[in-house]
């Protein structure tokens, strides 16, 4: 990497929140900007330079034919491609359409569906191009983003924890909301990184960082069912911001199939 690495930020289907995290590094932004050359960041600057880029930060999921092509160009232009957030790493909340078909969704929202051109699915960036590092979360943790950028500047591979939220609760000293209050929580199967926020605010984790490494979903859903939660409600809970992440998808499909079978049996 040259003395002033060229940094680019790209957006696909998303809310802008993850790239905003870069501007939300209020204490570190100007120092960071002195060490990298920000050459493509539409939200922050009118300076737009073509590739090649040393580091590309990619936010958002692929939902249109144009974007399918655009991500290929971003990949060709970029040495190290980092995907940011649940949209880019798992398809985002908009991946809920992957189950019902785009047509039904367009018809529900737009009076003139013929003006809207969109793919049937919302998919992660890694489904289209090779990704060098994935940063999870909806939204990402800005300090994890800083860690990724500092690692790259130092010439080492970034590392972020892949264990579950439970570990963060223990570190933070939060009493388990499931054990103490009987609140349904996806913490045991969700990747750390948020700082175990929800349990610290007396609510269960809703899985916005996606599945942890080797998540053991069936025992958790069994436990939730034993506590009286219906299979349908658990499937709905797994189908949110990381609905299409494989581990969450498979378990929600398993539960949904069970519900469908039960409903079809007289």
């Amino acid at each position, binding site marked *: 990497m040259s003395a002033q690495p060229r940094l680019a930020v790209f957006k696909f289907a998303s809310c802008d929140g993850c790239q905003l995290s870069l501007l939300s590094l209020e204490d570190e932004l100007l120092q960071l900007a002195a060490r990298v050359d920000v050459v493509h960041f539409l939200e922050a600057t009118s300076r737009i330079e073509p590739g090649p880029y040393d580091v590309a930060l990619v936010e958002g999921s692929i939902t249109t034919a144009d974007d399918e092509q655009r991500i290929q160009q971003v990949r060709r232009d970029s040495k190290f491609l980092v995907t940011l957030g649940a949209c880019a790493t798992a398809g985002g909340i908009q991946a809920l359409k992957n189950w019902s078909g785009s047509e039904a969704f367009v018809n*529900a929202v737009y009076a003139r569906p013929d003006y809207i051109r969109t793919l049937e699915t919302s998919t992660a960036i890694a489904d289209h191009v090779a990704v060098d590092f994935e940063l999870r979360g909806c939204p990402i943790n800005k300090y994890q983003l800083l860690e990724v950028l500092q690692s790259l500047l130092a010439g080492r591979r970034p590392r972020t924890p892949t264990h579950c939220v439970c570990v963060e609760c223990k570190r933070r000293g939060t009493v388990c909301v499931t054990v103490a209050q009987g609140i349904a929580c996806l913490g045991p199967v969700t990747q750390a990184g948020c700082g175990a926020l929800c349990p610290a605010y007396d609510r269960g984790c809703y899985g916005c960082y996606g599945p942890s490494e080797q998540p053991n979903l069936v025992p958790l859903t069994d436990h939730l069912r034993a506590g009286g939660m219906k299979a349908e409600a658990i499937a709905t809970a797994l189908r949110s911001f990381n609905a299409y992440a494989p581990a969450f998808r498979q378990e929600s499909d398993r539960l949904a199939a069970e519900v469908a079978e039960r409903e079809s049996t007289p």
Partner: protein
Amino acid sequence: MNQDDSGTRKIRVAAMTRVEGEGGLDVRVTDGRIEHVRLQIFEPPRFFEAFLRGRPLEEVPDITARICGICPVAYQMSSVHALEAALGVEISPEIRRLRRLLYCGEWIESHALHVHMLNLPDFLGYPGALEMARDFPEHVERALRLKKLGNDMLECLGGRAIHPINVAVGGFYRAPRRSELSEFIPGFIAGLQLAEEATRFVATLDFPDFHQAYETVALVHPDEYAMCEGRIESSDGLSIASDDFGTHFVERQVEHSTAMQAVRRETGEPYLLGPLARINHSRDRLSPAAKRLADEIGWETPCLNPFRAIVARSLELVHAFEEALDILKNYTPPQPPRIAYGYRAAAGSSATEAPRGLLYHRYQVDESGKVTQAEIVPPTSQNQTQIERDLRDYLPRVITLPDPEVAEACEKLVRCYDPCISCSTHFLKVRVGRS
């Protein structure tokens, strides 16, 4: 100049910058006559209204927050108030004040970002804040300090600044302790002073002499600068409850945009939302420091110059700091933090003032607590029709310039609205074509 054989000049801005979300502008001029001005929103549609159907109503503030990473609290506020209206939940005055405090945090974060980092570079001649920081570090540092205060408040009260996790139907999952909030008082006193200095500075910028005959629309409350509740009022004399929004405002779809465009139902005419509209309607209800400052800088009401929105936004920043301080100093934790409710089949709506303007939500829920219908009308899709009208009226002043300068002038005007394209599709590239 990009001109074809037939004499049509096409001016395009492929990707607008320093706006939230992505879109462009397409201007076509034939024989010096403006054929069309189109704000093109190619931000991919995400279909929030569709996938909210069938979800538990408790998830709505978490899900709708994801429409926009810059103003998630606005989505949370409009959604919880609409759902509470449906369920017949009355929140306590303490919860109400805590919600205003959270909204102040978002107004501070969003306004500080737009005024100083997205909009100010246009006035000082820089491509962005990072480039501006080399010559004017004091402006960018001030921006970052202001923004951080807003974000810190969101983190304390909401758990995190982007997509807060502590907003619930009925109130909050956990109310902060007194000590957690009182820590903010010294920082916010300093923030108020910084916001006042910043307002005095932006008031001295050069503004194009451009005035539009806007119909301005804002939420108006008799006793306070309206944020979460009030009547929807327009400068043409409309005054309605938010429940009647659909009777007087209508969204229509156009081919060149994935965002809806809203107009007044009675006239088919565009209208203006946002900080200019709000101050025009509620100047008397600004906080004392913001009101004094408006007088000191000679702020005229009504102000109908879109370029001056940066000053309006700065005054609101002062207001947000002062109001937040008032809430912080008098805080008592709500008991309980969340009002209990039961399910019933009903519909409810709410409009609140997002940083960019009026944000309307309406939900229908069933007896098992599931959403059966959702309607979301964001401020940028409402302003979009007015933005196109403004560009059409502004273009004759700049059309003799070379294409890149026309495009730049158009982009600057659009940016004054602080458009949030991610929001409007649930918007922007500038393309200019001349014949």
